[in-house]
């Protein structure tokens, strides 16, 4: 019990940054929503123990984003996933769990289910639970959580176009490296991209952001990291990300430029891959896939280009699709390709309508804006006006 006051101060610093008007966690009136610094209305619960389950339920029914602050003094954190699983309330607003202070004990199964986003202050001894957002100090953590809330609580007003041409970033040829992070930043509304789980699986980019004001999720490969090879040990990062996408019903944009999936020696990798593909297929969200460069092997399935029931598959003219990479490595020995180049070109796929559109990089954002905002009907007023 005596440990609590020491960590209250840390929670207080976090909450003071997130909700400037309510500096003290003890001043949080149970069940009342608050405004963050960005004027986003959220519920904030400083988790003390299982006795707050009802307060959590009230917050959920309000259908506002909820931030649950957990510190080393918090008890019964194992109750939290159970509360989600048992509740009848429909989860329609993001839930962000924030672990401030060190030595915070969090449920291990939060990697698979539980809060939509887990943010934690680094330095905790409990490293087995992966966090989506990490920061060194409570103030930095609050800033990240605030950014996540701004992205996920849609504000249609932010439709400012990105500056700069994508064709300046993306080389025509497949060998020259480029930054996928810069590409994704140009596709989304300026300043809205927020990467989740950044330290893990550097070959992958899993991020949320806005496109034309609509919150979207982005799953992309980084061709600059080992030419985009996806390691099978990185698959859990995708699983966790897809859970967020499904829970919050975010349109999913996948961008792929990858030599394929590297299976390694993990005997369970195939099963994990199967689970990821099933998860991707079963997502009932708008799925838009951009073939940006090399799309080889299982990467095609992993990033939604095939068998994932993508609603829209588009490609850049530089993209090539192939079952294996042997042709790219010239294993024929005489410099010729195992498959003639035109059959690998995405233009061939477009001719057969397997790719519905070939877009110039500079047209990509315009097309993406149309697709992710597809569910918004222009000119539709309230039918019961």
């Amino acid at each position, binding site marked *: 019990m005596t440990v609590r006051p020491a960590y209250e101060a840390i929670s207080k610093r976090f909450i003071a940054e997130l909700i400037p008007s309510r500096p003290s966690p003890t001043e949080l009136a149970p069940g009342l929503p608050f405004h963050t610094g960005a004027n986003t209305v959220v519920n904030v619960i400083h988790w003390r123990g299982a006795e707050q389950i009802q307060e959590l339920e009230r917050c959920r029914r309000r259908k506002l984003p909820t931030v649950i602050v957990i510190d080393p003094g918090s008890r019964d954190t194992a109750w939290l996933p159970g509360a989600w699983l048992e509740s009848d309330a429909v989860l329609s607003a993001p839930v962000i769990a924030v672990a401030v202070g060190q030595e915070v004990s969090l449920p291990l199964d939060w990697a698979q289910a539980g809060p939509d986003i887990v943010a934690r202050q680094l330095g905790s001894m409990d490293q087995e639970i992966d966090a989506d957002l990490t920061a060194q100090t409570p103030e930095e953590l609050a800033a990240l959580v605030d950014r996540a809330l701004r992205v996920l609580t849609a504000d249609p007003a932010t439709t400012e176009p990105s500056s700069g041409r994508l064709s300046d970033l993306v080389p025509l040829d497949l060998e020259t490296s480029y930054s996928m992070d810069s590409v994704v930043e140009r596709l989304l509304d300026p300043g809205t991209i927020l990467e989740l789980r950044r330290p893990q699986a550097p070959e992958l980019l899993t991020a949320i952001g806005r496109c034309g004001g609509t919150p979207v999720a982005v799953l992309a490969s980084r061709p600059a990291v080992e030419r985009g090879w996806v390691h099978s040990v990185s698959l859990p990062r995708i699983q966790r990300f897809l859970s967020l996408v499904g829970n919050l019903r975010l349109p999913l944009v996948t961008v792929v430029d990858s030599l394929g999936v590297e299976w390694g020696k993990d005997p369970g990798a195939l099963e994990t891959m199967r689970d990821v593909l099933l998860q991707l297929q079963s997502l009932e969200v708008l799925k838009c896939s951009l073939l940006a460069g090399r799309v080889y092997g299982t990467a095609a399935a992993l990033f939604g280009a095939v068998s994932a029931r993508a609603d829209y598959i588009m490609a850049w003219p530089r993209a090539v699709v192939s079952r294996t990479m042997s042709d790219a490595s010239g294993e024929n020995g005489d410099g010729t390709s195992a498959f003639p180049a035109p059959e690998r070109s995405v233009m061939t796929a477009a001719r057969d309508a397997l790719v519905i559109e070939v877009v110039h990089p500079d047209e990509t954002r315009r097309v993406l804006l*149309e697709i992710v905002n597809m569910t918004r009907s222009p000119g539709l007023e309230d039918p019961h006006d």
Partner: protein
Amino acid sequence: MQKLAGLGSTWDEVAQTLDTLRREALVMGGPAAVQKQHDRGRLTPRERIDLLLDQDSFRELGELVVGTVVVPGRPDRPAPADGIVVGWGTVNGRRVFVLADDGTIAAGARGLAANHKSDVVSLLATNSGFPLVWFAESSVNRMQHVMGAQFAGELERPTGMMLPSRANGGRVSPMIVAVSGQSVGRSSFAVTLSEFSTMVRGTSSMALAGGSIVRAAVGRAVTQEELGGAEMHGRITGIADFIGDSESDSVHAIKRFLGLFPNHSAEPPRRIVSDDPGNRLCPELYDIVPLLYRRAYDMRKVVKVIVDNGDFLEVKRDFARSMICAYARIDGWAVGIVANNPLFAAGAVEPSGMQKLLRFVQVCNRYNMPLVFLQDQPGVMVGPDVEAQGVFRHVQRLSAGLRRLTTPIITVLVRKNYGFSYMLLGSRWTGGDSVVAWPSASISLAGPEAGIATVLANEERAGTLTDERRSVVLQAYLDEAQAKHAAHDGRLDDIIEPDQTRRHISRQLEVFARRRPDTITSAKPGIDP
């Protein structure tokens, strides 16, 4: 360094090449084929799309698709866009997806790439919840793709030939099929699953198989018009909802339909601000509807008076003419109107009318559109002709379908309301939320003549039935059948004056049409093909 072969060595060159390739798709079958299409009195797919959509709103998909037409013994021909133009646009500002078969290429026969395009757009429409309009002019797939065992793979496509997912009660968006030329196979099946379909007199036809296959199979030469022209499907089969004199007519009807319906089945139809006040009285009705129940009149005139600005969109106008089914607005509310027309068979309900009615109310129900019933009918048609059509089966099918409706039902009994069809056409038994009658209305198991024929049959056979006796019994039946007796017992909600009809319906709509879709069972019945 790998270059983009054939596309350019800089991004600017690539952009120009892509533009050139996209423009090549616009040629369709070529100038000669386009002229031939026009000579047949038909538009090209792009002209149809331009006619439907708001100017400059069309966003085409699959512009780079190129197929091939393969005919044994002849050189292969390229098929720009592979025989179908797809995409989306807006109609009066609201998003709509479109498919348009290209009759200038291989008589509209599609290639495999065309099927992929069609699947993408159909699924995009369904998943994002917007209507789909299909300009059908297609003779199924090209023979090169479906002859032989490869045909087995045809049914595995996401949307397949039968579009089965549309026949269940899940959330769907309206699909409208405009049969714009010769249409066989898939597009004909799609018409039976659509919410609204149109044909054009003289230029469009719809059949299971084309004339050449019919000749090969049964040895009989038939024209497309004989096989399945607008006359056949407008008057005899009743499969087509609207028959236009031109493609413009057809598109105009489609726009009217779209204007009345919501984007998908999980939202109610949009109410508009009408310049025709809901409390307008309708004294014209006294002149239109004769008091004498045996005198015919055109119920369409009644409908015209009570709807906003006299405007209504009638479906299957020339089929089962004793039953009127029409979409309209009353005080800005979109409604489906079902009315007996005494001008034909005294308004009797025939098997064809039951078929027409059932499909109509299912469409209305699916899209949360309130129904207004105007009853004036002597009962279900009787006699050996309807018995040979299995009238019992039609009655039961209609009965089962009507009792599953969840949309509001407002009923006005105009004159005669006899027999089991009284119960079927909007009574409380089939879920009528408001059932009122004019003072002229009468309700009974059978008309008075039928009653006399039954109870006085012996006297008539014996030759002892006098005119006076007949008059006394007739008057007794007429008196007992007056609707006011039912109102006194609480079996009707009210008796209203004819001129109050529109006002009454408008007030009921204010109450019942505001029922939110989420309070209605989500397991809505499907639409019978």
